[in-house]
């Protein structure tokens, strides 16, 4: 899961980076459970273009299981979207232009959403007509053949796969793509695969210091490419989430022949249905068809439009106004990242004329307030904090109901295994916070006037939220010292173990739809270190042993339930973090756009299913 | 307006001294009133002014600042904004009434038949155009001259007013000239179309004394050459005595004394004129003698006194006969030689001879 743009426009440029900081830390070395059939929520408000799941569902509904696709399922072409016709141009309004086009440098959502149209990887996640998600073989013939209890994964490449210069994609390209991840200049993409291969959380680059450029290669004990079509990964620990990880745009293929290293970031070769005809940084990007892409080899992309005209620099207000107007070119316009703006949004959501053109869903982030376990040692005081934090005050700062939903748990509604009505402190029911209860607890602990050091960052919504939290805590009897730091140093500030701060916000997002990317990175007590992401500094015997146990559970349904159970312990017993809101995003699209549905895997409109409604159809 | 003796329009031959050459008035101003509407009320800048000027003669109009002399003369040229100004009476130029003339007609007259020289040649010349352009412009307009002809005329005029190297300096800008030279340029510009009437509005005030004399001499020379009538507006009796044939003394928008230069300067009749003379230094006078300024300030023209406007400042108001009230009755200015004063002629002669003249000598 790489959707990383927070719901608020102004934080748009900052939040992804901060958030990425958060969840990229210390995820290595953690064996993840096999996630064979995760249940996830398919929520989409009003599908455009006659989608089968077009019913107006505002809240989450657990509907389908996610599966790893076999060879049959992984064979192209992709299942037709009902009513879709090829051709036409889709216009895309975006705020921020991608800084990176080299797949290995792509992580944040405004970049990955575009590069999903350009690059292909070994696997891909597909949302089908019934609303089910599956991990399919993309360049590979299937989602991966596992052996050795998850330690060995074998992929066979398809035959009709090419780069946009016509050269065939072979296992040498895959090897090259993996090896260059270790080079110094690859700094922005995901690092799961590298860490798993090196079995080293921080120093994975030592496995191949210069990448493939110094003439060195990964040994067969790590990566084998015995023939042109076979790729075998060897891990020291079971890595049952590999098919998910490989579907991330950051692991898409780079041409060994065409690799220009740093310069590849500006002019990459593409393997997907489109290529970059023109890119003017910060302004616009035109995608046209890659003539060498074979629909028959691609089970994940319908690629109906002939052309994408993407323009940048559009604010949420501008985007919303254009899409509301729905005139001229705006009729064939979508946005991947610009949710409705806070001004117009509430009216748009209520107005019947827009209902057919709205797409909404959860984003993978949960706003929670971490409580430093090493400084706030009295559980009663932590619970007092949990009771006092006003969910409504925080949510208002993020745009109200459009921006998020009150959170009872630390696990996003996108993830499987949840109890939807979980609300341990009754906060979802009473989002203003339980000030009296908090004060009673403080008095019981003889800690009225307890001093709390609170750090947040300087983005306007974060400040507004912090003020709401501060006011409630002071009312409950705390003495709050608030300090603020710039966004890009925020996670470094709170990542220091002896930071001296007691409470701080963390917006965690799952990288893919499993609790394994939420609980272990944040609450494993053996991972408390400077720069690590256990911001609550929780070191709890029960949590630690449960993490080890659940990671070995092979049944994904059971694992999902167990992750949720463990997260309940973190909230209720340890009181390490206070869940506050689940981020949401609601987008409008033009009336001549078909196939627009929310895709939970990408956290926005599913760009692979879009088509232009042609005249007369 | 209340006057005990309304000024009768028309020439009054009997009032004219015998020494004066008989001449038909070229310009005749009759009961001119100029009023400006302001935020505070109506300003009666000129209030019932009458005078005549004949060809070849020079009329000096003297008075303090704000006495209405400049306003009256700009009314002759029709330079006041008609929307903000109310002008009544008559300004007859060779029998043609300029008060009722159309703007287009006035444009034909200005700079052509009537020209004016302003006080400050620095601000009164356009900084954006060469002196040649500025001199040639009215010549082209009024005489229909071509560019080259007008330029030659400008050079000729510059030479005539005594500017050295006129052919070269014609392309200079006003700021490249000294103050006196600039005023010569002004004069050249005013005379370029041989005007019949030249109004010189304090033409030498901004200049130093030696240059003043040169400019005045120049004006007189040119008058002899062109035979124009000149109205010389000034607050300086010295200037008037040097160039004028006749004098009109103005106070608070009205004429208070009139006569030939000789008459007015040697036998002034109005206490205000006495005051003016007393406040003026004289060549050959006693250096140690104190100059006496007129006490008080001119009245507000927004609400002028209904009687004699000078009465509040007048030292001799108690000597007015009992049947006249300075506060209520407005003294009239008789045609020809005379003064607008309630004092009897005899009394004024006695007062001047006994009390004023000794101080002036």
């Amino acid at each position: 899961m790489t959707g990383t743009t927070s719901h608020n426009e102004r934080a748009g440029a900052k939040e992804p980076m901060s958030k990425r900081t958060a969840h990229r830390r210390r995820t290595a070395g953690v064996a993840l459970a096999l996630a064979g059939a995760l249940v996830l929520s398919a929520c989409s408000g009003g599908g455009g273009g006659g989608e089968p799941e077009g019913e107006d569902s505002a809240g989450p509904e657990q509907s389908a299981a996610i599966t790893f696709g076999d060879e049959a399922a992984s064979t192209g072409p992709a299942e037709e979207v009902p009513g879709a016709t090829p051709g036409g141009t889709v216009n895309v309004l975006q705020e921020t232009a991608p800084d990176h086009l080299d797949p290995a440098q792509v992580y944040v959502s405004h970049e990955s959403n575009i590069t999903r149209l350009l690059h292909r990887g070994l696997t891909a996640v597909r949302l089908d007509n019934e609303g089910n998600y599956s991990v399919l073989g993309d360049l590979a013939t299937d989602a991966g053949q596992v052996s050795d209890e998850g330690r060995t994964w074998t992929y066979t490449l398809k035959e009709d796969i090419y780069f946009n210069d016509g050269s065939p994609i072979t296992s040498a390209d895959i090897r090259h793509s993996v090896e260059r991840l270790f080079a110094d200049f690859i700094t922005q993409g995901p690092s799961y695969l590298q860490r798993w291969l090196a079995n080293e959380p921080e120093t994975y680059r030592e496995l191949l210091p210069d990448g493939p450029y110094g003439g060195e290669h990964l040994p067969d004990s790590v990566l084998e490419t015995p023939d042109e079509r076979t790729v075998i990964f060897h891990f020291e620990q079971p890595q049952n989430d590999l098919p998910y990880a490989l579907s991330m745009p950051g692991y898409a293929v780079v041409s060994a022949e065409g690799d220009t290293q740093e310069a590849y970031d500006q002019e990459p070769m593409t393997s997907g249905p489109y290529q970059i005809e023109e890119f003017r940084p910060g302004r616009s990007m035109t995608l046209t068809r890659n003539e060498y892409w074979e629909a028959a080899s691609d089970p994940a992309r319908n690629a109906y439009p002939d052309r994408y005209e993407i323009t940048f620099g559009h604010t949420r207000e501008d985007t919303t106004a254009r899409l509301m107007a729905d005139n001229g070119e705006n009729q064939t316009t979508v946005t991947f990242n610009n949710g409705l703006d806070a001004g117009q949004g509430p009216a748009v959501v209520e107005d019947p004329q827009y209902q057919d053109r709205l797409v909404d869903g959860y984003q993978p982030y949960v706003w929670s307030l971490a409580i430093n376990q090493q400084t706030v040692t009295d559980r009663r005081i932590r619970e007092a904090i949990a009771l006092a934090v006003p969910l409504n005050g925080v949510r208002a700062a993020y745009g109200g109901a459009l921006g998020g939903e009150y959170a009872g748990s630390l696990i996003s509604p996108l993830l499987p295994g949840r109890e939807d009505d979980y609300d341990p402190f009754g906060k979802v029911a009473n989002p203003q916070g339980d000030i009296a209860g908090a004060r009673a607890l403080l008095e019981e602990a003889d800690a009225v006037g307890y001093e709390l050091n609170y750090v947040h960052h300087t983005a306007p919504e974060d400040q507004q939220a912090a003020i709401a939290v501060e006011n409630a805590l002071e009312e409950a009897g705390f003495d709050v010292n608030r300090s603020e730091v710039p966004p890009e140093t925020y996670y470094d500030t709170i990542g220091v173990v002896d930071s001296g701060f007691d409470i701080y916000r963390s917006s965690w997002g799952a990288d893919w739809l499993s609790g394994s990317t939420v609980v272990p990175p944040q609450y494993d007590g053996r991972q408390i270190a400077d720069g690590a992401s256990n911001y609550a500094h929780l070191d709890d015997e029960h949590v630690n042993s449960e993490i080890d146990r659940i990671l070995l559970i092979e049944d994904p349904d059971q694992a999902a339930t167990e992750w949720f159970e463990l997260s309940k312990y973190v909230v209720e017993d340890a009181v390490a973090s206070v869940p506050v809101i689940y981020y949401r995003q609601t987008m409008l699209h033009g009336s001549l756009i078909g196939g627009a549905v929310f895709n939970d895997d990408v956290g926005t409109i599913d760009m692979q299913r879009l088509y232009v409604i042609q005249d007369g159809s | 307006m209340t006057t005990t003796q309304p000024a009768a329009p028309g020439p009054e031959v009997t009032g004219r001294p015998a020494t004066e050459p008989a001449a038909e008035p070229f310009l005749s101003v009759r009961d001119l009133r100029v009023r400006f509407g302001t935020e505070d009320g109506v300003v009666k800048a000129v209030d019932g002014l009458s005078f005549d000027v004949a060809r070849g003669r020079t009329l000096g109009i003297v008075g303090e600042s704000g006495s209405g002399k400049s306003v009256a003369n700009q009314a002759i040229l029709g330079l006041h904004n008609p929307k903000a100004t109310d002008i009544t009476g008559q300004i007859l130029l060779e029998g043609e009434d300029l008060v009722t003339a159309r703007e287009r007609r006035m444009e034909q007259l200005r700079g052509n038949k009537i020209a004016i020289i302003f006080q400050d040649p620095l601000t009164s010349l356009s900084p954006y155009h060469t002196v040649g352009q500025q001199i040639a412009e009215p010549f082209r307009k009024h005489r229909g001259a071509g560019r080259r002809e007008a330029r030659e005329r400008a050079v000729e005029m510059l030479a005539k007013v005594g500017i050295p190297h006129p052919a070269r300096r014609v392309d200079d800008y006003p700021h490249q000239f000294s103050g006196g030279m600039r005023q010569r340029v002004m004069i050249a510009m005013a005379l370029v179309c041989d005007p019949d009437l030249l109004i010189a509005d304090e033409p030498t005030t901004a200049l130093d004394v030696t240059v003043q004399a040169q400019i005045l001499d120049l004006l007189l020379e040119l008058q002899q050459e062109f035979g124009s009538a000149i109205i010389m507006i000034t607050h300086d009796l010295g200037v008037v005595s040097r160039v004028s044939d006749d004098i009109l003394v103005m106070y608070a928008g009205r004429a208070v004394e009139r006569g030939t230069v000789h008459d007015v300067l040697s036998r002034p009749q109005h206490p205000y004129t006495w005051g003016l003379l007393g406040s003026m230094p004289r060549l050959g006078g006693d250096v140690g003698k104190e100059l006496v300024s007129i006490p008080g300030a001119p009245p507000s023209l927004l609400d002028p006194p209904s009687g004699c406007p000078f009465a509040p400042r007048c030292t001799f108001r108690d000597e007015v006969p009992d049947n006249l009230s300075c506060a209520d009755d407005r003294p009239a200015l008789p045609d020809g030689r005379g003064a607008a004063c309630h004092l009897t002629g005899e009394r004024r002669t006695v007062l001047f001879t006994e009390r004023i003249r000794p101080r002036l000598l």
Partner: protein
Amino acid sequence: MLRFLLRRSLGALAILLLISAVTFFLFYAIPRNPALLACGKGVCTQEQLAVVEHNLGIDKPIPQQYWEYMVGIFAGREFPAGSCPAPCLGFSFRDNRPVLDTILDRLPTTLSLAAGGVVVFLVLGLGFGMVAAWRRGTLTDRTVSSTSLVLSSAQIYFLGPLALALLVYNNQILSQPGYFPITEGPGAWFAGLLLPWLVLSTIFTAQYTRLSRAALIEQLQEDHVRTARAKGMGRRTVFFRYAWRGSLIPIVTVLGIDMGSLIGGAMITEQTFALPGLGRLAVDSVTQSNLPMLMGVMLFAALMIVVFNIIVDACYALIDPRVRLA
């Protein structure tokens, strides 16, 4: 004239040097480490951070960095991530391109917006100002004056969306604003910029109307204008040949400042109409903490303001012969 230009250019250079130094040291006094942005934030170990800092050239003392920046302007610089030929205004490590490339890419948008806007508001503003001054005190004057007073206090972020809603979204009278290079079709260029020009110039037109009217009325009271009338010049001649010329001086002064800042980037207009110009580039650079880019944009904007100052002074000399360029 040549001496004037030479002297002023040297002065401008000194000013730019000062601005660059102040900006540079201010920026690097901010406790934000650009390396953190460039290095995948937090993924980097301290050693790696050091490598990135070295690659960005920010591991050296600030005065030395400034010196290298200045040298780079004249000699160009080489970065591990790419080369930055002279004049190198810095290198954006965010997208690995020389800052100047991006500035030059955005410049045509801003230039088009500014140039078109200036033409519109000068023609209209001076025109309305002349009409109002010519017909001073009449109903026309009062209408123009009060309308311009109201509009001059309007704001683009209010007028812009309003105009968009009325003219583009609801009625489609004008086409969707956007920037299309003039080289790719003057028609599209014009249509795309028409509304931004109009909105941008509405406020400026109002301001220049007021300015022009006031300046003309002041000029009409000048002694030399009275002289022109006393010479028998017609009202039209007096108005245009004498009064108008002098009224240009305050207008040129303000125009110089406006032009400089418009070309430095009309941030709000560009934001409102989603035009990819220098103003947006500056805003984006701030939100993305892209210091080299921001530095480059600010220097460029400063250069524009200084250049237009020189042009204004040259214009003074053209208008008023009393101003000598020596």
